[in-house]
């Protein structure tokens, strides 16, 4: 399967067309095709994973004490098109990173498909929904298996289009179509960076898009550092846009306007993870470009700062959200901040491992939130108004949501604990203590806001819709994915925990391994103090939040915003999302759009209308000139003259046209005699 990996993205892509073409005529309105396609991809991905793990570690890199045994990536490519002497190639590049993501994407997408059959039941655009899901999955699978950066761009943009379609699935409401537009345009802002970065690196690497060559050249010092820095900054723009990092994170919470399974897919396995994947796939470029963990390059790097800021601000925003999906959305932003920060401090394995575990528990949380709204709160997502006390009515949803929340908070021995610990230990190891602290603060806040979320949803007294309607457990198509994901939320971390180091070794890439050897801990140095501290931080977050909400303890802090002007103002800042949306919409967009519109109006009125009017007047004058001179005099003159000449010539010539044969013969012989004489005089002798 490693040699035929192109099948994995190709199957859902084909299914997209089949669903569009025949979906409506099938008994399941197309979902069977989608499930079959993604299921086949998932099975093939699992086969690929088994083959990858079974692949012998026969590639030896380095010498002496630095020797590393790694699996060789499987690369197959063929020429896509030629421009002059430049061969643009397309193909698959399968290594541990690809395999891990293929499995995650396939699994989450499959579960989302199954879940959607119940959640989207009787939707007005059911068939199109499944078609878009298939294409979305195909886009992500293309991205993670691509051997050329140009091919990655295709998968990347396919996802952009699909996210637009799916977030705006219920476009009849203006709010939803606005959210879809916002998601599309905000990520496009970053995508400009992708295009620029691609161009820079294409030419810097001798006109190739091959990602392995890019990494090898960047790490081998074959490309100048300044060029790499420029390329890395441009690509960072794409990462920031797609992975919703500060300051372009604002689209992600709004993307909650889409159906909940789509949110799960976008947040767990595709779309936002694409940015982190791009970062880790082209890590050689970023690593050298941003001088990550290079000796003597200070205590921070650009990606680490962006990621660190994102962790904190997104976690703070999660506290003031009443919409359960928005809490989860800001949580995703915050966790993506973790991954970007991890990559920024050299924790390559840690970042991918966190991506891997996060996919399971975040998908579980989103699907759980969907289950709550589907069966518990009558399609409302407002925790304060329409939820509360649901744990008795929805035991499976509650249990899985709780497990996933604990995993997200980083409680031993669930998945999130191991991956988060991995990142923090590596950050400390590489001398980025500041970011270790930021990570710990983020962990504390994560634990606290997830406790708030769980408490508001499942504890306390039922409110609003949860009290008026009859909450009940969701059908099996919804709970089965939840149970599977909850199980994985517990166990996924053990691949690189409890002293096992499978994940790190499986994902090691032969191109990167030697450069990362110094900074990236393939085998996390599990230390009890670090584990105890992070556990204590997470535990205290849960405890404090629990005391605050359940016990109404911490008296001085209760309803602080209602009593203290400063606190109220701070809360307002959070509720207004740091005024970033206002900045973008009112200042930047209005500031750019207003003058541009005025300028365009002036240009329209003065220049274009002037040109048009001038052209009209000029054309009219030219028409008169043409009529008077050319048409009347030249053309008519020529035609009349031709007639006149012919008539006069005819009158003259008819004189010699006597009709007498002998006169013609006389002319003939006379002419012949003259030619004869001429011949004798001029040519003869």
């Amino acid at each position, binding site marked *: 399967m490693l040699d035929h990996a192109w099948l994995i993205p190709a199957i859902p892509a084909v299914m997209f067309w089949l669903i569009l073409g025949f979906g409506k005529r099938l008994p399941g309105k197309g979902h069977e095709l989608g499930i079959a396609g993604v299921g086949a991809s998932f099975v093939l991905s699992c086969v690929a994973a088994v083959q990858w793990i079974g692949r012998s570690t026969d590639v030896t890199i380095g010498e002496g004490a630095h020797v590393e045994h790694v699996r060789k990536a499987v690369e197959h490519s063929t020429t896509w098109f030629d421009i002059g002497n430049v061969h643009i190639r397309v193909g698959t590049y399968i290594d541990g990173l690809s395999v891990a993501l293929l499995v995650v994407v396939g699994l989450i997408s499959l579960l989302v498909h199954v879940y959607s059959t119940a959640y989207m039941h009787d939707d007005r655009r059911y068939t199109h929904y499944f078609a878009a899901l298939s294409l979305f999955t195909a886009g992500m699978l293309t991205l993670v298996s691509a051997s050329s950066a140009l091919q990655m761009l295709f998968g990347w943009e396919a996802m952009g289009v699909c996210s637009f379609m799916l977030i705006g699935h219920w476009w009849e409401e203006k709010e939803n179509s606005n959210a879809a537009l916002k998601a599309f345009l905000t990520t496009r802002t970053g995508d400009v960076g992708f295009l620029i970065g691609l161009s820079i690196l294409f030419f810097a690497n001798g006109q190739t898009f091959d990602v392995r060559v890019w990494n090898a050249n960047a790490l081998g010092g074959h490309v100048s550092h300044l060029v790499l820095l420029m390329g890395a900054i441009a690509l960072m723009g794409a990462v920031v846009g797609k992975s919703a990092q500060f300051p372009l994170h604002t689209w992600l919470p709004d993307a909650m306007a889409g159906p909940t399974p789509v949110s799960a897919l976008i947040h767990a396995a595709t779309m936002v993870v694409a940015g982190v994947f791009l970062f880790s796939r082209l890590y050689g470029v970023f690593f050298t470009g941003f001088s990550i963990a290079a000796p003597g390059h200070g205590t921070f790097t650009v990606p680490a700062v962006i990621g660190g800021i994102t962790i904190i601000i997104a976690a703070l925003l999660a506290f003031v959200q009443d919409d359960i999906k928005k809490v989860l959305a800001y949580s995703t932003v915050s966790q993506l901040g973790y991954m970007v920060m991890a990559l920024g401090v050299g924790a390559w394995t840690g970042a991918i491992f966190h991506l891997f575990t996060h996919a399971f528990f975040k998908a579980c949380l989103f699907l759980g939130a969907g289950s709550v709204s589907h069966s518990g709160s009558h399609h409302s997502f407002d925790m304060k108004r329409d939820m509360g006390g649901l744990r008795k009515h929805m035991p499976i949803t509650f249990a899985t949501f709780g497990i996933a929340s604990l995993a997200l908070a980083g409680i031993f021995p669930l998945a999130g604990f191991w991956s988060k610990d991995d990142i923090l230990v590596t950050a400390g190891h590489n001398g980025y203590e500041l970011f270790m602290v930021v990570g710990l603060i983020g962990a504390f806040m994560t634990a606290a806001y997830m406790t708030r979320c769980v408490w508001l949803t499942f504890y306390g007294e039922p409110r609003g819709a949860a009290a008026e309607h009859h909450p009940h457990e969701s059908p099996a198509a919804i709970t089965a994915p939840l149970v599977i994901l909850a199980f994985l939320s517990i166990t996924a971390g053990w691949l690189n925990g409890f002293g096992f180091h499978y994940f790190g070794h499986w994902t090691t890439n032969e191109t990167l391994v030697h450069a990362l050897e110094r900074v990236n801990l393939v085998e996390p140095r599990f230390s009890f103090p670090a584990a105890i501290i992070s556990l204590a931080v997470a535990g205290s977050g849960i405890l404090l939040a629990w005391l605050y909400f359940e016990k109404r303890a911490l008296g001085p802090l209760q309803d602080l915003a209602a009593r203290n002007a400063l606190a109220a103002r701070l809360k307002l800042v959070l509720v207004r999302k740091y005024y970033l949306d206002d900045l973008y919409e009112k200042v930047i967009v209005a500031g750019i759009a207003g003058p541009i519109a005025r300028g365009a109006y002036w240009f329209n009125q003065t220049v274009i209308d002037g040109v048009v009017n001038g052209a009209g007047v000029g054309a009219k004058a030219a028409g008169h000139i043409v009529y008077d001179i050319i048409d009347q005099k030249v053309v008519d003159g020529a035609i009349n003259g031709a007639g006149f000449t012919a008539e006069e010539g005819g009158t003259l010539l*008819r004189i010699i*046209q006597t*009709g*007498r044969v*002998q006169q013609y013969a006389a002319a003939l*012989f006379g002419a012949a005699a003259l030619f004869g004489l001429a011949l004798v005089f001029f040519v003869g002798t």
Partner: protein
Amino acid sequence: MYLVEYLLLAAALFSIGVYGVLARKNGVLVLMSIELMLNAVNINLIAFGAFRGNAIGQVFALFVIAVAAAEVGVGMAIVLLIFRNRASVNLDEVDLMRG
């Protein structure tokens, strides 16, 4: 053998023919004058052929005789029709094509 005698004879015949074509009013005589001119050419062809010692001139002369026979046939038919319509073969009166 001198070639010039034959050429002079042919030139004389041709000139008589030209005179006949241009000056005679009778259509039949004009046709006969054309025959004279063609035969003058035949004499030239045969004389040159004999002078050069080959038969090419005679071959051409035979072609000319064949074409002349056809030409006289068509010409006499036209003259005959003119005569039937006008009871005259005076070419000065035949100027239907005058412009």
